[in-house]
């Protein structure tokens, strides 16, 4: 059950510790913030030395140097726009300079619909991933966005209409696995700058797993967006293996990196 103001009051009155479930509510409820602050304000002062703590904090601030530190201390608006630029640049370059061979016969309305869906999710998921700590996004919103970003490519490649002069693995003289591998590699490579940018723009000291999953899913959306304008191979299995799996690969790799990093601490 969700934490409420009554639970906060109960915890304060009955001297119990606040569980982790309370923090989402405390971060957004001004009444509970006042109640807990009041209790903290009038409780006995702590023995730790403010000056000693300040020296430690200053030391950490002194480490905030270099390009990545500069990137993450930009305003949230600049960070979001920056991440969007990294995500959309390969898509636009693909559309202008290396359009798929069956582009002219592809149903325009479907193209627009798919492109808009990918675009909307790139913007929204980027916004959610980079939401600053003082403006928290609920865990539910985070997970819904991640799930949607992972599922959308599967939905699109499963229901994509087939243009008149589409190509198949046979016509391309490639085995299904080989052709899928080429697209997977291409999508992963072109989404990589966007994934790295999002990772760098984030301000967390220790990346939470949920952030890693969203970044991975976001990489999948960017990769599929690029492939929408790149790959004329409409074979269903090719699209599932070579396109829709980009997000899953990123999620697995980034999840592994985060968990391994956590264990090594």
């Amino acid at each position: 059950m969700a934490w409420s103001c009554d639970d906060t009051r109960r915890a304060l009155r009955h001297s119990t510790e606040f569980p982790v479930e309370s923090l989402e509510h405390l971060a957004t409820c001004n009444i509970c913030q006042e109640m807990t602050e009041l209790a903290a304000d009038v409780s006995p002062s702590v023995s730790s030395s403010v000056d000693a703590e300040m020296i430690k904090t200053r030391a950490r601030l002194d480490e905030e140097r270099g390009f990545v530190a500069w990137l993450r201390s930009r305003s949230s608006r600049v960070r979001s726009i920056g991440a969007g630029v990294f995500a959309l640049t390969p898509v636009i370059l693909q559309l202008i300079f290396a359009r798929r061979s069956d582009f002219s016969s592809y149903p325009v309305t479907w193209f627009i619909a798919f492109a808009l869906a990918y675009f909307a999710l790139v913007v929204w998921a980027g916004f959610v991933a980079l939401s600053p700590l003082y403006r928290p996004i609920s865990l539910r919103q985070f997970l819904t966005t991640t799930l949607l970003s992972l599922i959308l490519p599967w939905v699109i490649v499963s229901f994509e209409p087939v243009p008149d002069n589409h190509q198949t693995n046979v016509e391309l003289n490639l085995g299904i696995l080989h052709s899928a591998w080429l697209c997977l590699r291409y999508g992963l490579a072109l989404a990589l700058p966007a994934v790295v940018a999002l990772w760098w723009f984030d301000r967390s000291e220790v990346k939470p797993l949920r952030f890693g999953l969203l970044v991975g899913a976001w990489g999948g959306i960017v990769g599929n967006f690029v492939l929408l304008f790149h790959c004329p191979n409409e074979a269903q299995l090719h699209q599932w293996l070579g396109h829709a799996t980009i997000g899953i690969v990123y999620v697995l790799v980034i999840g592994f990196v985060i968990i391994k990093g956590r264990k090594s601490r």
Partner: protein
Amino acid sequence: LRDNLQAVLSDEQLMTAYQAGDKAAFDEIFRRYAQLLTRLLRRFTLTQDEISDLVQQTFLQLHRARMDFLPSSELRPWLLTIAFNLARDKLRSDRRKPESPIDSTLEATLPGAADGFRRYEMRRDLGLALAELPTEQQEVVRLHYEEELTFEEIGERIGVNAGAIRVRAHRGYANLRKWFTNKDEFREESADRRAR
């Protein structure tokens, strides 16, 4: 002189100065809030080292997000929200559950558990503080905190909708806090309110 000047600036003015690169402003913000954050974080299942680390991280995040801060907004809730979110991430990653009661709540140890006299004094102070609140806030805080009614129940009892009760509760708790931390400011504001 510089330190004295920093001390009279508001939190928001200090933050604006820090945005412009004044490091002394950061130190003053730290002095004002480090202890409060430490006391707030003691309410969670965290060790002293973890609390210390979270306080440092909170200020690190304040530094990283400094360009987001708008002079028209308030620094205090901004900083607390950052601290609560960092604590949430920390506790989630550790998957810890609350274990034991703590001894620093408003009712039990505001006054200091080991010190009966201080406890009595604090209870008395709380009574005095409540008595100085505007009547409508006093009533809501008493019903909410002491009688443990929900906002809906209070609304039904005094014939006001729950939204308005929440507003009164918020103002009431904020005023109580002001009474304990800065009585002069609290009384000046009360006098202004009455004059209006």
